[in-house]
């Protein structure tokens, strides 16, 4: 089984849109979750796509481009991992195992795109000297080209040679290596979490880290990330309330019954 040209084109358009989503609206298409799902849908095996995408997504939750830092291209990893899994017909975990190294490999193309755009920046500088604002404007639009190419090229090439790649993997890569990759996939989320811990002031606010961990470690199946986020939100709000108002203001709660309380008709919000 090879990937038809039609499918390659559709997926190329998709990753082009996805990278634009990533640097603008961030609605969803840029995420490995969507990458897997869309690829699965297009290639006729949505379920495998959902598995690969969702697993990869959870694996990279904390990975984000803070301050323009470059991170592995897990979206493309997700697209190609899913495609290879479906091609090889070897199940989702096969695809997940491949997605990580592919994402790693493609870190460089992201860097190239970000470097290439310096070219347009300099052209814009030149036009600015002339006061030619229309031409300045144009440079930013050209900037989309390197972004799009950096995603389309690897996907196109990877999918075109898909069958050969998969055969090569199947014949050359030993079982222990795939087992290892699988386990690596299980522990890789540690990276994203560790990045977040470095990014956030954990030394100052470590108690809240502990509380989050304990809630989830003991709450287990009954608890969820949104639950912990709500508790975190509550604690953050209590902190802000305390810090902001050192002296307790006169509260006017009390005898007014709700019937008379028609002066405010907003939903619950922070009252300040």
């Amino acid at each position, binding site marked *: 089984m090879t990937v038809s040209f039609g499918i390659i084109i559709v997926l190329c358009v998709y990753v082009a849109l996805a990278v634009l989503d990533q640097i603008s609206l961030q609605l969803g298409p840029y995420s490995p979750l969507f990458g897997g799902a869309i690829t699965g849908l297009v290639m006729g095996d949505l379920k495998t796509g959902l598995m690969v995408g969702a697993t990869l997504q959870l694996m990279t939750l904390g990975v984000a481009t803070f301050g*323009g830092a470059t991170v592995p291209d897990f979206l493309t990893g997700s697209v190609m991992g899913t495609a290879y899994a479906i091609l090889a017909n070897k199940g989702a975990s096969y695809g997940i195992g491949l997605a990580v190294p592919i994402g790693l490999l493609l870190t460089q193309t992201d860097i190239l795109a970000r470097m*290439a755009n310096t070219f347009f920046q300099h052209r814009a500088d030149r036009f600015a000297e002339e006061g030619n*604002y229309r031409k300045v404007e144009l440079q930013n639009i050209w*900037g989309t080209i390197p972004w799009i190419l950096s995603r389309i090229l690897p996907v196109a090439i990877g999918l075109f040679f898909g069958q050969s790649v998969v055969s090569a993997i199947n014949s050359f890569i030993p079982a*222990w290596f795939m087992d290892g990759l699988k386990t690596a996939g299980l522990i890789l989320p540690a990276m994203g979490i560790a990045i977040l811990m470095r990014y956030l002031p954990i030394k100052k606010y470590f108690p*809240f*880290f502990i509380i989050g961990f304990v809630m989830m470690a003991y709450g287990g199946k009954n608890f969820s990330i949104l639950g912990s*986020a709500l508790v975190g939100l509550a604690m953050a709000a209590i902190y802000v309330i305390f810090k902001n108002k050192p002296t307790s203001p006169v509260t006017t709660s009390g005898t007014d019954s709700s019937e008379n309380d028609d002066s405010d008709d907003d939903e619950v919000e922070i009252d300040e």
Partner: protein
Amino acid sequence: MNKLTDKDIKKVYWRNLFGLQWGWNYERMQGLGYSWVIMPALKRLYKDDKEQMKTALKTQLGFFNTSQPMSHLIIGADMGIEEKTGMSDPEAIVGLKTGLMGPFAGVGDTIFLAIYRAIVFSIASYMALSGSALGLLLPIIAGAAILWVRYKFTWIGYQQGTKLATEFAGRMKILTEGASILGLTVVGALIPSVINYSLDLKYQMGKVTLNIDDMLNQILPSLVPLAIVMFSYWLLGKKKMNSTRLIFVLIALGMVLGNLKRIFGM
């Protein structure tokens, strides 16, 4: 001087949504994008004054980098100020932009890149794992809500102008702290929820089977995931270590842990 119309503000909002990072580059980061985003305002204000336009273009092409959703506040404030003073004092504009972009990046990235993503996409992913593609709607819906917030930010920035710089600064500190608290709670919760690795080691001692995982769980559930995270955190603090290298370390670790039985010949 010309006044900005509501339509101008909205145009800038739309451009900001899409194009702030199209021209992202290592030299000026969002500098090129910034100039494109604010261009409708520049046109309105300086179309007829070539000198001012030149100054404006050069000013707005300078280094800029902040969290995208927060950038609306800065660009809004920028428009508000230029509408009043034009390009008479470019330094002030640069000061506003560079003064706010740092703290806004901190709080914005914490909230929108780290926490928001972790929550929304983890829920959607768990739904996907249970076989339903409907979960993919969640980021779209929540994301739409953020677009609305960004719209509000544009107007708030525009209306507050310089006040934003002075007043928000104080608030920002406390908001960042709040965001950190929320963020760290979620980060702590992520460990047991997304790292599903367990040692899977059983040990035969005479008649009794020793289940190492059970024993570790009795001490503290998710002890192994916690240990791996702490190890990664510690590694990231080392010189010469970065997140990409950490991936290789973790893959190597996975290679070992995934083949424990092979290694010990069990």
